[in-house]
């Protein structure tokens, strides 16, 4: 059967399982779009190519599959860069297809030509340029395999216009993936496992650090078994939230820069850290020299390059988290850990009484209250997509996730503007899930053009804008570390309610605490997208906080009584 490269592209996408693709057309990708029009793939037209990558990312994270995005050459391709880097840092499998100028003019600075494979080399797991129709099918098949296998990540396939237009014989069987054969490193040997088990079974004050790798390897069940058998307290990374139920008494919550004090103290006071599918990011360790200095460390990690990168470990178990845990589990002994749990409970009790949610309504609207109310109203069952900044940390603290894939957020790269497009991708992947966007007034203004995508696709997404008139997290750093010199952080925003209305989206402004729950309830009852503009306290801060470079136990704690801003005094 003779097909054009563009037709082969679409046929290949269908055959590898793509049902939805996020994109934006243009000259160099027009042949592909022409073929896409006839393929059983739903194309979602975005408003900016960055949005297409975040949507594919959100789609991948919500579904567990691979997200796909397609754009044109030049500026279309460069606009993808931020989304690709976001997916790279969070190990999210997406395949980005870019049009490219004809191979005959490659390198001539042709109109909308850019070396996108060169540009994206350090931020993709792999990328490839395809300049012949004959190579399209294999490139697409390989891209999906690479994106999803091992430690997942973004793959970019750059297809020249003549490769899309060329005609060749389409042979699916003959274009099977033919990736370079990799040397198989010998699996972790029995001796190493024995050493790990010896540490695990002799530890008195162990803490398990749970990361995104548990989700990626689908290790949730065996992880729960592992934790319950060994009766380990569990601290989670931001991207690990949801892999272990927040309702389990062993779940301490998020660790790190904005982790609760008892979590970070437990880590610092531990004698063994069992890190599973996490990479000791600087945001979770604080100062490495003082990080859990009395603890032995076991690192269960699929990526060899992460071993001893930041934290020197005593035992590295390199491999898929699920397989490693399954091998460990039968040998884990059930110890008496009352003393250690009591110790952590004491730390927790001290802080809990000062917890913001227990404070009376002082007439202010606190972002943490809003998020906590949202958690209660949605029974903790919504799929929450957060942006980056203070609201993101409050969400991690006050929305308690029991289910995997119920929180999608940009962790590693910290990409503002991520939430709205990622939520669109998540909603497309899981149309039956209740999707909430929690976003600040800064990040929302970065990608709010995608409201039009929501309307065009008739999606039902609830958007909670945590609007404090500041770039809040930066303002907080300026307050703590720059003598309250608020340079470039006060932020003018449009009237978000009027803006939503202009897009044809319902909206409501909330300024006091009693309005929060009724507004959330009303929004949930609407079978369509609703934007809630929460006008929250302007100069609130996220506590506790480990300052950059400080030790994990040196936290700036919540003030008692809760801080009042200069405006109120």
């Amino acid at each position, binding site marked *: 059967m003779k097909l054009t490269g563009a037709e082969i592209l679409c046929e290949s996408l269908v055959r*590898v399982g793509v049902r939805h693709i996020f994109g934006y057309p243009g000259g160099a990708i027009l042949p592909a779009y022409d073929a896409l029009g006839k393929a059983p793939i739903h194309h979602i037209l975005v408003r900016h190519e960055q949005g297409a990558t975040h949507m594919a990312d959100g789609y991948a994270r919500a579904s*567990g*599959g691979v997200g*796909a995005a397609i754009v044109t050459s030049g500026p279309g391709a460069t606009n993808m860069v931020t989304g690709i880097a976001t997916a790279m840092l969070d190990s999210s499998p997406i395949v980005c297809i870019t049009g490219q100028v004809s191979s005959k003019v490659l390198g001539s600075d042709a109109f909308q030509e850019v070396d996108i494979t060169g540009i994206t080399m350090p931020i993709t797991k792999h990328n490839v340029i395809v300049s012949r129709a004959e190579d399209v099918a294999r490139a697409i098949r390989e891209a999906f*395999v690479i994106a999803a296998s091992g*430690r997942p990540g973004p793959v970019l396939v750059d297809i020249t216009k003549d490769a899309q237009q060329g005609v060749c014989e389409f042979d699916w069987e003959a274009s099977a993936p*033919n990736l370079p*054969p990799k040397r198989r490193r010998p699996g972790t040997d029995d001796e190493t496992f024995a050493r790990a088990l010896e540490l695990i079974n002799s530890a008195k004050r162990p803490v398990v650090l749970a990361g995104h790798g548990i989700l990626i390897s689908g290790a949730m069940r065996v992880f729960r078994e592992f934790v319950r058998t060994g009766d380990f307290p569990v601290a989670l990374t931001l991207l690990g939230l949801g892999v272990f139920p927040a309702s389990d008494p062993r779940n301490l919550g998020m660790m790190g820069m904005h982790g609760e004090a008892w979590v970070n103290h437990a880590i610092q006071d531990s004698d063994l850290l069992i890190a599973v599918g996490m990479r000791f990011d600087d945001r979770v360790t604080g100062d490495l020299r003082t990080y859990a200095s009395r603890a032995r460390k076991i690192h269960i990690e699929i*990526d060899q390059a992460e071993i001893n990168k930041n934290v020197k470990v005593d035992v590295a178990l390199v491999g898929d988290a699920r397989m490693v845990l399954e091998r460990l589990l039968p040998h884990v002994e059930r110890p008496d850990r009352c003393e250690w749990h009591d110790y952590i409970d004491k730390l927790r009790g001290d802080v809990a009484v000062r917890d913001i949610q227990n404070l009376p309504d002082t007439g202010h609207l606190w972002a943490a209250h809003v998020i906590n109310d949202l958690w209660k109203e949605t029974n903790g069952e919504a799929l929450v997509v957060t942006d980056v900044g203070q609201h993101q940390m409050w969400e991690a603290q006050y929305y308690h996730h029991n289910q995997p894939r119920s929180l999608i957020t940009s962790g590693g790269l910290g990409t503002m503007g991520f939430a709205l497009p990622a939520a669109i991708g998540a909603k497309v992947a899981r149309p039956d899930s209740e999707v909430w966007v929690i976003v600040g007034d800064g990040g929302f203004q970065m990608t709010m053009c995608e409201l039009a995508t929501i309307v065009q696709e008739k999606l039902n997404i609830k958007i909670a804008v945590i609007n404090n008139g500041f770039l809040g997290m930066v303002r907080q750093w300026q307050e703590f570390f720059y003598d309250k010199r608020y340079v470039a952080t006060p932020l003018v925003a449009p009237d978000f309610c009027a803006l939503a209305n202009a897009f044809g989206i319902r909206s409501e402004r909330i300024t006091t605490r009693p309005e929060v729950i009724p507004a959330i309830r009303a929004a949930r009852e609407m079978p369509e997208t609703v934007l809630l503009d929460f006008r929250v306290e302007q100069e609130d801060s996220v506590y506790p906080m480990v300052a950059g470079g400080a030790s994990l136990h040196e936290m700036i704690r919540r003030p008692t009584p809760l801080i009042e801003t200069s405006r109120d005094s």
Partner: protein
Amino acid sequence: MQTIVAYVEHKPGVLNRIGSLARRLAINIDSLTVGPTETAGIARMTIVVNTNREVAHRLEASLENLVDVLLAEIITDRPAVERDLALIKVAADQQSRPHLMELIKVFRARVVDVSPESLIIEVSGEVDKIDGLLEVLRPFGVQEMARTGRIAMTRGSQLLQPPSRPTELQTPEAVESGDGTHEKA
């Protein structure tokens, strides 16, 4: 100095990927040689980096994470044959020439080009030997030098070889799923 041997796909862009990786990890490449191997389509690199063992390990692992790298291994501490080759153009007149020839003999180098005012000397061997020759030649006036950089091969019968490309499909179809709302656990 750390020496890494890598087998890579012999195709455009691979050198760029490796250079880009070293740059991203802020590793200075001291020398990098690349050439074909006994297997068509596969090239072998010897990468010498001026870094400590830990960073070299990270480079080794990160290299193997690249799709086009089949194998990467640090051989610094293993018994290995290491060779560097240099062409050195040195000033030589009637008076200095006999003296130069003596030195060349001592270093088991050879003269590959002679002109009235200069010689081109070819020397191969371990880096120290070439550096040694270079030192004694300097007083005569070294005009140009070209060096290949180190190539290395571990001694003995244990082979450092990439796996051969399987003839049949190596990827389970299950992985090749673009959509799939499958939850694994």
